[in-house]
């Protein structure tokens, strides 16, 4: 039995592994132009800074693979962690109880998104744009825009290490491995990728499209709140801009990691890992070069644009037309 019937042309190869080369190029560029870039401490702190991002991006990746988008993840992270913070501050809850409730809150908020998209049939872009505002607004109301300091235990978690590597990095890697497994080796995971190929086809194949979509939004929300917890632990307090704009960075990371925004493609590992890592590398590298921090957003937007056009080019050359919901123009 032959594995490949046809010659792998250069095109296919670039499509599949292009993003690796991008990472390589980035690493080479920055290590040459900035001192101390490849230092152990730098790389370590790089991973530390990107652990919330890794987790949130994984959630986003699942949503994107079904062919949809969720831009409320940052607000979900914010609101759920606010509630946790308030529980600890005002109701004297223990960190472990608060932790649990934050995760549950994340799932619930994700469920709200899922409900509106699946059962009210509202365009996911509009839905999550609305919930993005609503959730953050509620969080700001609840906290009166105050910052809430975390108890020592939590802050310690945010900076603890285990054999030299930060605890939260271990956690993030663990999450990635588990979710990669779920994606590749469970029925749900396979059906997520299937959905990205087209809802109509999936219905004909007997896949429960609505359940899978709904579950995916819940998953994304849960992971967002987990990422929020780590972020909050790292900063040491709950700030008003926690998670702000993280969705857009996640989208950039995902596309860099070879996961198509049209849906149906990509892997969590190494995709999300490489994507987030590259993005953080770029940010870190720019920092080392002494670039203006305000440039990050600009660069992020540029990356999304370039990555998206590469994505669209791929689709057109392959003759695939996998569109996100109703956007047809």
């Amino acid at each position, binding site marked *: *039995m*032959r*594995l*490949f*019937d*046809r010659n792998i042309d250069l095109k296919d190869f670039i499509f599949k592994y292009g993003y690796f080369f991008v990472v390589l190029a980035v690493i080479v560029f920055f290590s040459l132009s900035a001192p101390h870039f490849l230092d152990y401490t730098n790389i370590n702190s790089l991973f530390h800074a990107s652990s919330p991002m890794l987790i949130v991006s994984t959630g986003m990746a699942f949503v994107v693979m079904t062919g949809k988008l969720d831009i409320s993840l940052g607000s979900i992270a914010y609101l759920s962690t606010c509630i946790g913070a308030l529980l600890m501050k005002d109701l004297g809850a223990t960190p472990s109880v608060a932790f649990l409730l934050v995760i549950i809150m994340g799932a619930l908020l994700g469920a709200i998104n899922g409900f509106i998209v699946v059962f009210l049939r509202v365009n996911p872009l509009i839905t999550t744009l609305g919930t993005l505002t609503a959730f953050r607004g509620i969080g700001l109301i609840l906290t009166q825009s105050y910052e809430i300091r975390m108890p020592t235990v939590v802050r310690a978690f945010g900076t603890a290490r285990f054999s030299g590597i930060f605890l939260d990095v271990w956690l993030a890697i663990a999450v990635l491995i588990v979710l990669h497994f779920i994606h590749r*080796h*469970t*029925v749900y995971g*396979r*059906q997520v*990728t*299937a959905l*990205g*190929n087209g809802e109509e*086809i*999936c219905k*004909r*194949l*007997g*896949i429960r499209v609505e359940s899978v979509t709904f579950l995916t939004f819940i998953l994304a929300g849960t992971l967002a709140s987990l990422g929020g917890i780590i972020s909050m632990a790292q900063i040491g307090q709950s700030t008003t801009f926690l998670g702000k704009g993280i969705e857009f960075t996640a989208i950039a990371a995902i596309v860099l990691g070879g996961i198509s925004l049209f849906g*149906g*493609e990509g892997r969590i590992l190494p995709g999300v890992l490489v994507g987030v890592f590259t993005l953080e590398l770029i940010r870190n590298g720019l920092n080392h070069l002494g670039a203006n921090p305000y440039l990050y957003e600009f660069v992020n937007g540029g990356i999304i644009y370039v990555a998206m056009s590469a994505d669209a080019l791929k689709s057109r050359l*392959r003759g*695939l037309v996998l569109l996100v919901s109703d956007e047809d123009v």
Partner: protein
Amino acid sequence: METPYLKMKSVEKSFPGVKALSNVNVEAYAGEALALLGANGSGKSTLMNILGGVIAADSGKISINERIASIKSPMDAAIHGIAFVHQEMALLPTMTVMENMFISHFPLKAKLKIDRKEMRNQCAKVLERLGCHISPENIVRDLGTGERQMVEIGRALLGNNKIFIFDEPTSSLCKQEKEKLISVIEKLKKDGLVVIYITHFLNEVFEMCERVSVLRGGEVVGNSRIEDISMDALVRMMVGDIHIEDRGSAREGSRSEVILEVKNLNRKGVLKNIAFSLHKGEILGLWGLLGSGRTEIARSLVGLDPVDSIALRYAENGELVRMTQDMARKRIGIITEERRVDGLFLSMSVKRNMSMAFLPGMKKKNSASVDIALEDSLCDQFIDRLNIKVSSKDQTVGTLSGGNQQKVIIGRWLEVNPSILIMDEPTRGLDVSAKAEIARIIVRLAEEGTSIILISSEIDEMMSLCDRFLVLNKGNLIGDFTYGVSKEKLVGIAAGSESVHVGGNGK
């Protein structure tokens, strides 16, 4: 005498205004392939949709293996072991062959993890059984049409299905792939399964089927064993009595001057070296089976589909001049095959739909705005002339009946008044009186000087309207006949009976 494994008895089905099936009786035996023949609208798709659980019959019984089967949904059909291999394959292009096969029933280890090894084994076994050399790990997107079909069939086999319905399976296959499919079907038969084979290709029927049922106008006009019937008799059964509503004497079309010349029309894999001429006032019919390239030719002429090469010349002042895409747009109108997809603006009014192609010509003097009075009067004119039944010009087009919708589209092009009008299946889905009305409109248009390229799958319609016929097969132009050619000849040529492949694995 064997008893049939599958029996469909006294099946009746009506749609609003149309009786799709009357008293249809069909039997299929284990280890045999039953060919289901019939023109478009003969009811064979309806019958199979009933068997596949997609729609419900009004009355009638289906029995499988001597037991009555109640099939109310595709899921029921699957439970009864019926696998429907459709033309538009339900495949997930970004996923592997084995994932495609198992997507709705993965084998699990410990209830949670997908057992990949088991999946690969079962998949490999099925592929081997089909004599197919692809690997379970191949990504479907990278496979050719024939191989994709194998994946679909493989999926059907895995479901422990006993009845396999193939709907026009060879229309997009090359010779090798077709031969492979035939050998697969032979294997299915050897395993004692039931095969129902829907096709237009008569030589295939004789190559691999044991029995044949012919449907016409919703009724079964013949059931026979293949060995008991000849090709000619079969064609006659399909085509029926020669009953053409003649256009009468006004068939001068092909004798007038050439108005359009098409040369060198090529599109890789779809059209090969198409060249023809169209005369003024002529009704030129493009005839051929599904997938022969008729619609593709039509769409290429107006630039709706991409082409590798095309040379168009148009008659201007008695001379043929080269025609650009823009010129083509202005002089050639097209009524597309599926009005609900790209023929109508369903949420807009009749008036708006009609004026949409002619707007630049409706501008007020020295202004960029549309002359509404002109729009209104033109619309009224054509509603009258075409006898469109609407309560007002502002009625939403989506609420009209199919026939009236089609007339609105015709009205749209009449407003533009192009010298050439392409009509792709203009009477599809319409009841008899609407069909007749539109046929009359087509004839009148030709009499008034419009040249028409007509595409239709209904032989009677084509025979009664066309001055000339271009016959297509798999993207090749294989015949050019003037009015006077016999119905059997046309059907035969397109269906391949005139060039039966004998020898090799033929019977």
